[in-house]
């Protein structure tokens, strides 16, 4: 069992993610983001087609290759490499500090405390009729599920198959799919948590929702 409160405390102490930027290949380094504290942004655009901030240019065999910031944040520290120095692949060039947003914190907490049931193949998913009635009348968190229980109906290309749940017993904390929408393979269908942790998780999530301070 996971101590959710402990997890939250950890997150409070370090409300960011450290991203280590390493040399993808050997070459001469030319820093563009030269000092700690420089703000950077990640890729943007509908298709993430606009690259993020340029961090470093690495020159190898007369070609300068750019290295862009993968996430929004600020440069936390520079590695022990000087400007214009030759480095080997894998050497740390700098660390970026990415401050977690409210959604990211909740996602982290849920990822650690819930067990996810993934879609075994692409198709439309429905709950089994008796589960469906329960979900619709009393909400998903009233449904207790166990390993081996018939839980879903998968409908694809004019055929229907029943899918059995496999995983730890508990209640359905969250439903991640919409009826009538096609779900891709391996995307989560439901998140399950042990019955006794439900209250605790709900409390932590609502606390994050209300008091987490987002930083730019």
């Amino acid at each position, binding site marked *: 069992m996971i101590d959710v409160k402990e997890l939250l405390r950890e997150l409070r102490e370090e409300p960011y993610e450290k991203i280590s930027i390493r040399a993808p290949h050997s070459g001469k380094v030319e820093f563009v983001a030269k000092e700690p504290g420089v703000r950077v942004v990640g890729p943007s*655009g*509908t*298709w993430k*087609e606009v690259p993020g901030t340029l961090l470093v240019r690495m020159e*190898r*065999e*007369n*070609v300068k*290759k750019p290295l862009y910031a993968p996430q929004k944040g600020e440069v936390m520290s520079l590695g022990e490499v000087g400007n214009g120095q030759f480095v080997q692949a894998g050497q740390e060039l700098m660390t970026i500090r990415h401050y977690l947003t409210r959604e990211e914190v909740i996602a982290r907490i849920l990822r650690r405390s819930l067990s996810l049931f993934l879609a075994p193949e692409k198709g439309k998913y429905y709950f089994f009729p008796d589960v469906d009635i329960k979900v619709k009348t009393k909400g998903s968190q009233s449904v207790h599920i166990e390993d081996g229980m018939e839980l879903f109906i998968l409908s694809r290309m004019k055929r229907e198959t029943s899918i059995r749940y496999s995983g730890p017993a508990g209640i359905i904390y969250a439903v991640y799919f919409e009826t009538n929408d096609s779900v891709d393979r391996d995307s989560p269908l439901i998140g399950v948590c042990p019955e006794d942790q439900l209250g605790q998780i709900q409390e932590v999530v609502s606390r994050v929702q209300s008091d987490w301070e987002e930083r730019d």
Partner: protein
Amino acid sequence: MDIEKRIQELRDRLKYILDIFGPDENTNVIMLEAKLGEYVAREPGLPKQEAVRQLETLEELFRFLEKKLERELTPMNKVRIVRHPQRICLKDILENVYDNYTEIGGQDDYSIDPSMLIARAYITRKRGNKVHNQAVMVIGQEKGHGQEFRNGGSVKPWGNAKALHYMKVAETENIPIHTYIFTPGSYPIEDYPGAAQQIAKNLYEMAGLKVPIVAVISEGGSGGAEAIGLADTRIMMSHGYYSVISPEGAAAIEGRLRGGQRAEPKLIEHCAKQLKMTADDNRAMGFVDWKIGEPELGARPEHYDFFRKLRKSVISSTDEIVLNVRGMRLFRSFALRRHKGADVYVRWSLDSRAKERLLWTRYMKFRRMAQDAYLDKRHWFSRGSEWTSEFISSLYSYFRYDLFGKQHKKVTELAEDMHAEMQVVVGRSTRYWKNVMSKLSFGKAKKDVDKAGLTSLSAWDDGAQNSGKWQYVSSQAKLDRAVVCPNTSVHGCLDQWAPDLFGEWAGVCSFCGHHFPMEYQWYLHNIFDPGSIYEVFSEIESTNPLKFEGFDLKLDEAKRKTGHKCGCMTFEARIEGTSVMVAMFMGAFRGGSVGAAEGEKFMRAMERARKKQLPFLSYVHGTAGIRIQEGVNGVIQMPRCTMAVRRYTEAGGLYLVLYDTNSYAGPVASFLGCSPYQFAVRSANIGFAGPGVIKETTGMDIPPNYHNAYQALSRGHIQGIWDRREIRGNLVQSLQTMGGRNLYYR
């Protein structure tokens, strides 16, 4: 109450004037504004008679100054007039010019494309006691006085497809077509049938449409206008514009603006002037047949006199077209020539011989356009000798392939039949004897079979890939550096050393197959048989027909840099012994843009290929579109070249198109896009408008690979994608398997 109404009318007139003259400071406009303001302030205190008298004076002033302003109109003012919501639109014309009409396939926004309006209309003419109802198909863009769902007359590809469908209906029904052009340009999206490809189809079909077509141009914006603009008679409204690009677009290109930056109003105004887009300019250059005068400051729905004038014009134009191609016409055509809108009656249906004449007249009309927009500095003697040699070669091909060839073919076919008949008889007995002989030769070992050849793996790059030995090696291969593939992040391609990549590997990433651009020389030397290239029409030279400011210098620079006189190189060459006519568009010469010289060369090459019965290949090493600095001289190449293509393919040729690097806009939307055999070199981009323009005009976000050749293939725009190293082999295959009946080698 009456006074109130009249004041309101003056207010509306002033507002219209302000809209037209926009930001320009004009003393007349300021005076009108001041006078009206003064009168409105004074009016409540005046006795009624005095108020009416002063109002009449004011109205007189309005009339006087409107006349004066009319004379001061700049091209940009005219652009604002045609874009004004009060400008007449197609619905007004249908109401007022035709006697009755039924709109087809659309009721306001319930339409496949509300910006394209189709109607079956008729015109009633009375001759003595007899009433004639003459049916026409009316096709045109509808702006709908600012109705938003009509997109301001920007037609989507399916709207143009609908127009084409009904043009064909008109052809079946043998009734004339009247098209009305009210478009700032086509709606630039690639979804099937695709903006460019559909315009190309329209042009191709219109080139052979066997009914009279009259086009009336109010706002003729580039490709969108051409989609329904290839007509026997083109009339232009005096306040309209007909241009290769909107002034704003030209200013954005001239000012080298990117990413939604706005051009200065001054630059836009300047470009509008330089593009020579008004009715007078187009009339002078011969792109429209005549201009129809509009009331002061442009026609609006209340100008009924104008509609009457327009009605007369379209009727007499249709009459004239029909009379020109029909037998019995003597007095009527004379009367029409003497007096536009003369009152004669002409039946509008055509018989089959008149139809043929109609097509020929239409072709010649466009063939003669833009002849002053390129240079041909040759001596008359060399022109004459070229003409003679072409004449001789066409005579030769007539005797060789038509006269003798046909007899030869008949004899061969007869021989083939005889041979096949014989085989049936002889074959049976031969088989019998073979059987007997093989049984007699028992024990004798069977023929050796190449077991190793059958069981071991074949080397995939033998032959077809030239084993990495190329006739021409790119200068990019001389640099000692590594090259990063743009697909590294997706496919994890490693860096490649330039001499390997551009030398042996022919510029193809050996990890993901990405094709790096190569110079056109690479293709010249590696696709065609060595030493077989024979350039023709090389003397035709690009020039600056509109005297566009600063363009002479840019043109000289391009000529100096590339060593060519224009962006299109035409030559005869051989591929594995088969002669081919090739037109190559070079990206290095002003972005591969097409102007009058390029179009003329393309047309001549097409004609030469038709006469000599050669297959034709358009190799597009890159084209950015029509050359905007040549204005309509450039845009008119779209219908011209497409007509040449149609004449060539109908004569039984093979027209292949091969796209490389980037091919966009006008050329793709006409003479390239109309080919049934379009192929792309891998990693090419093909489309109508670039991502920036699409974003700007439609507000849609465009994915990075929107114009990629694979996308074009899945949209059905092209017919296949070729690896650069296999172009030669694929061309050989195409020459043997595709195309019509009249190829010399068949």
